[in-house]
Every structure is written in structure tokens, then in C-alpha cells.
């Protein structure tokens, strides 16, 4: 029996792309793909979150808890309220 290899189909796309695009031995095949272009693509991929759906598949869901991006969260409203109170106290006439 071969050694068991744990299922890693859940490997993140970012982890896989980083490896198959950037690493691995480079052998000249008969069909030439300009590697510089592929490297540019990799950089682009690092910078983008392609779409909300794609990002969710990749396990990226931080906007769901980011108050700036989520009106359901009360955090932003509370922060605004706190700042407004602070401003009022600063603007109040001093004794």
C-alpha cells in the first residue's frame, strides 16, 4: 500500500497558483508560452480578488465582518456616535 496522501482538494487556489505558475521546473516544450507574461499574470492574481464569488470559494470572507463594508454591523454606527459625542464635548464652552 502506498503511503496515505491526505485529501487536499480544499487547497486554496492562491496556494496552488503560486506553485504551478511561479515554481516547478521550467522545461522548454514545443509550444512556447512567454513566461514573462505568466509572471505578470501571477502578480495580477496576487493583487486581485477576482470576484466576490471567487473570493468566497477561496475562503475570503472578511468583508462580512468588516464594519466599513457591512451595514448590519453596529460597529461603524457606534464608532460614529462615539466620535460625535467627543466632538460635542470638545466644542462645549469651557469653564
Amino acid at each position, binding site marked *: 500500500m502506498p503511503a496515505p496522501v491526505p485529501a*487536499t482538494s480544499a487547497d486554496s*487556489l492562491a496556494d*496552488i497558483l503560486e*506553485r*504551478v505558475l*511561479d515554481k516547478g521546473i*521550467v522545461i522548454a516544450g514545443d509550444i512556447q508560452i512567454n513566461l514573462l507574461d505568466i509572471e505578470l499574470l501571477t502578480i495580477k492574481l496576487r493583487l486581485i480578488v477576482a470576484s466576490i464569488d471567487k473570493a468566497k470559494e477561496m475562503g475570503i470572507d472578511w468583508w462580512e465582518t468588516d464594519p466599513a463594508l457591512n451595514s448590519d454591523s453596529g460597529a461603524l454606527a457606534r464608532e460614529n456616535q462615539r466620535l460625535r459625542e467627543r466632538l460635542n464635548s470638545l466644542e462645549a464652552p469651557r469653564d
Partner: protein
Amino acid sequence: MTEGLGLWAYGVLDGDVVGPSTPLGVDPAHEVELIRHVGLAVIVSPVPLDDFGERSLHESLEDLDRLEILARVHNEVLREALRQGAVVPFRICTIFESAAGVKEMLARQRSRLTAALERLQGRAEWGVKAYAVGGASHGAGGSEPASGTDYLRQKLADRNAVVMTQQALDTAVETLHARLRERAADAVLNPPHHRELSGPTKEMVLNAAYLVADVDADGFGALVADLARRHRSDGLELELTGPWPAYNFSEPVEP
């Protein structure tokens, strides 16, 4: 070879291996097969050149959905091959027009590939990522400043606290990497993923690959778990992935 088909090459194995357990290739109409020559074997699968010519491939690579399929299948075939022994993974989009072209490449690259395979024998790549969770703490918070001077003093204290935290974090990451490298035959540090992939509450501070002996794979996993416990108080979260085909260690190195 059927007219209009090329061969997508995944990687190289020792020529004595039995062969892959016939998973489907990047073109799902075709299974993967082995081409043996000069004591080596290349895993390939036929691909229609209409879809896998230079121009079509460029378009495919720009389409994230298609790229994902190519990348996942390429990786999956290599991971399957890893069960049989060492494998030197090719970067994706290594395509040959015929089996003769593959054999010619093997003859030409024989010493380089053999050396790379020898280095990988009985070893696999493991990925370890560390995240700083919650970001640097901004001072102790607490009392409201009583005056403008007080406010500035508090600001300065906060800034120093952040700097200290950053230094402590760097030290923790260095220690962590040193401990893991000790346990591995080789190690590679890669740039951390972009912040947008990890989110504002988590910052990747280590993105490393380690070449670990298969017999020590469990020990390496236990070490990662142990380090994760130790460094939790530093605000570090660890993630272990693998075993991977040795993408980060596929070039032969001087002994």
C-alpha cells in the same frame, strides 16, 4: 498520435514506477499516461492543439475559471503521482507536439532531471504560513486624555507600543522559521500573499515551503502544532499544507 493533439507534460518520475492510476488530464477527454525514456518517465496527457496552442493558452490563462481548472488538475495529477515516489513537477503549460519531442527533451535534460529526482527521493514539500491575527495592539487604551499634551504623550506611547509589537512579531517569525528549517532538508521563503487575500484582521507574515523527509512528516506536523501553541500568545496563527509535489525544490542543487 491523433492529428491535432499535443501532449501536456506534468512532471518527471523515475522510469521504474508502475504508472499513474489513470486520472483524467487537463483535457477531460483524455487520461494521463507515461512516456518512458533513458530511465525516466514523463507524465503526459493529450490535449487538442486548437485549445492548447499558444494563442488559446494565453486566453485561457487570463480567464480565472479556466486557469483554476488547469492549475487544479495539473496539481492533482502530480499529487497522485507523488504516492509512487519522487516527482519533479513542471511549471504549467509545458506542452509538446509529439512523444518524440518528449523523449528528445528527456535525453537532453537527463542529468538535470536525474539530479533533481535524487534530491527529492523520500521527501515532500510542506507549506507553513503564519498570520499575525488582529494586528498590532494600539496601546493599553484606558483613560481619556486630560489635556492636549497628555493626548500627544499617549499617542507617542501608543506608537512605541506598536513598534515594540512589530519587533516582537519579527523575532517570533524568525524563531519559528529557524525551528522549522532545522527539521527540514531545505527551506524556501516566499513573499506573503497580498493583504486583500488575507483580510484586514489577519496579515500573512510567513509564507514558507519546507522539504521534509517522508519518515519525519508526522514529526514535522507535530512540531508545527507545538509551535502554534507556543506562539499563540504572540498573536500568531499557523497553517500547515501538504504534502505538495516539490514545486519549490524542483531544481537540482549542488550537494
